[in-house]
């Protein structure tokens, strides 16, 4: 077993750090407060080839795996950009994988080079107001009309929707009750979000305010059959394929936020002098931070194991879920402790830990709740009866 970081991985970390160093906490604080998308950060990451790192070289990308992509996102988050930085580029990094894997060569050739160079923004639409984790209950439907599908329905939490040109949309093409199984009858379509039949409404939320998440209504949107990804009725299977890498990337983002929060907390605990000595000298403050370091480190090792397994073509369901669970818990706990370390100033925006705290809270909910991860582990790993 070899735990040494490869030269490539170190170079990737250093390269991303150089870009991120131009976008300090002040930048992200302002973008979050103003609810402004970080266009210049996005462009810098795209120009450096970091957005396209996991897209195959034949489409202009970097041809790297989930391990390298997770390193990029971890470093973005750890720079202090946290989720505002990660979510700005997250879907471009691996979200269009179904198009590569299952889409027609024409569709892949049209879309992927533009995603790789950052010129095309793509969204992902699965969750609905009445269908979150229970994906098979989606009600957005697509009816065939000649060479087109006509889409009607609504999605929620579509990230970046107002800036995106296209959205990879999961729709029902056959009603659930007419299918042999609930996971059948769903289809993946690449739809045009700029069409007038699409109505986008941002959802006010607790944090990560530089990147909007939206409710998107589709009222008779016509989509050519040529924009279908793969086979009709196979969409759910295609989506499932992407769940593990998604969890690994989110874990890496959580780890990055944890690192940012821990760094701030340690700096403050060293600098802040109360009763004639730095507050970090008090074990009541030092031990929680040391404990967070241990938990983040443990999560990091599971993330590396999960991404290595995925890139090696091995099953990684258990590891990806464990990584997501451990990293989300460790990151939020660390951000909370960083806030506690800062005392009253932790509640002030200018110290940034409250931003990490708000944003790391999201990881315990999205893209899948901690409870559903534990359901997976209970059932699939431990062999306990399924609870739902």
């Amino acid at each position: 077993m070899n735990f040494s970081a490869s030269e490539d991985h170190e170079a990737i970390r250093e390269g991303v750090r150089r870009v991120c160093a131009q976008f300090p906490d002040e930048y992200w604080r302002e973008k979050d407060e103003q609810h402004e998308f970080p266009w210049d950060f996005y462009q810098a990451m795209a120009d450096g080839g970091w957005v396209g790192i996991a897209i195959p070289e034949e489409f202009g990308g970097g041809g790297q795996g989930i391990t390298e992509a997770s390193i990029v996102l971890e470093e973005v988050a750890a720079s202090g950009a946290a989720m505002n930085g990660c979510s700005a580029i997250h879907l471009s990094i691996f979200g269009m994988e179904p198009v590569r894997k299952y889409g027609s060569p024409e569709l892949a050739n049209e879309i992927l080079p533009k995603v790789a160079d950052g010129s095309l923004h793509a969204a992902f639409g699965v969750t609905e107001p009445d269908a979150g984790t229970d994906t098979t209950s989606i009600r957005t439907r697509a009816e065939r009309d000649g060479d087109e599908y006509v889409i009607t329905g609504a999605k929620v939490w579509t990230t970046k929707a107002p800036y995106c040109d296209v959205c990879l949309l999961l729709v029902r093409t056959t009603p659930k009750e007419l299918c042999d199984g609930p996971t059948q009858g769903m289809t993946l379509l690449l739809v045009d979000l700029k069409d007038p039949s699409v109505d986008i409404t941002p959802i006010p939320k607790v944090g990560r305010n530089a990147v909007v998440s939206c409710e998107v209504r589709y009222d008779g949107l016509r989509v050519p059959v040529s924009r279908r990804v793969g086979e009709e009725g196979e969409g759910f299977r295609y989506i499932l394929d992407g769940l593990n890498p998604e969890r690994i990337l989110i874990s890496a983002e959580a780890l990055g936020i944890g690192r940012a929060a821990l760094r701030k907390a340690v700096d403050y605990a060293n600098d802040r002098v109360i009763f004639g000595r730095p507050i970090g000298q008090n074990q009541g403050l030092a031990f929680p931070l040391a404990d967070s370091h241990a938990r983040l480190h443990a999560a990091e090792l599971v993330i590396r194991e999960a991404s290595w397994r995925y890139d090696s073509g091995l099953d990684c369901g258990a590891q990806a879920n464990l990584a997501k669970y451990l990293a989300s818990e460790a990151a939020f706990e660390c951000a909370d402790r960083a806030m506690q370390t800062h005392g009253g100033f932790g509640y002030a925006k200018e110290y940034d830990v409250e931003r990490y705290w708000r944003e790391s809270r999201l990881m315990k909910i999205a893209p899948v709740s901690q409870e559903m991860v534990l359901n997976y582990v209970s059932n699939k790993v431990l062999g306990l009866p399924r609870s739902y």
Partner: protein
Amino acid sequence: MKVVVCVKQIPDPALPGELDPSTNYLKRDDKLILDESDSYGVEMALQLVEGAGGGEVSLVSMAPNNEVSGLRTALAMGAEDAILVSDNALAGSDALGTARVLAAAISRLSPDLVLAGVESSDGYTGTVPEMIAGVLDIPSITFAKQIEIDGNTVKVQRQTEAGYDDVECQTPALVSVTAGVVEPRYPSFKGIMAAKKKPVEELDLSALGLDESSVGQSGARQETVRVTEAEERQAGEVIEDEGDAHEKIVEFLGELKIV
């Protein structure tokens, strides 16, 4: 057009540095990085070659332990290849010894133009570029804020306290580039990957035909005799405001000739 850039690899300034008590020189045993002040020279060279529609940017560096980390960063920015001079006998080199080594490496490449930073961020002697020009017997222009190549002439806007002077000379020439006059590009992902495969020729003193007595500690005419702690800054004066604090502040600023 062939441009050679002198690149120094230095200990990471973000980490606490340490002096070797036997030589009073900075320890350079750990990983070294590209000196930021040289990244301006690299960027300037890349822009000149791009502007000329063709050419080549090569790097020369002198570093212990065959260190190439900083060179890889400059190669990732877009330089084509590099010469690294590394030899145990170079430990303790002074500015002239360093200039002799770099000049010997540069002369193997027969460049049209040699660029360097004004001064390194760890040594700060600010004399090596001009010494290189002296050893090579080529003209030298310092403090460039803008460089233009016109045939066999290099035209430079040379920064001064009042503005800049327009100066020019024939190539080959050496020009030192002022920090901050261009925006060094970030190495891209593809640049970083490509840099791993770019050639770095590693040479020792014998390959350069240099005698050990002219470089390193034995050839050094400069010696760091003593290192002392910088004096701690004195505490400032605290003015209790009794209605006249503004007057005292104005008076203080007046003494400093700020107002």
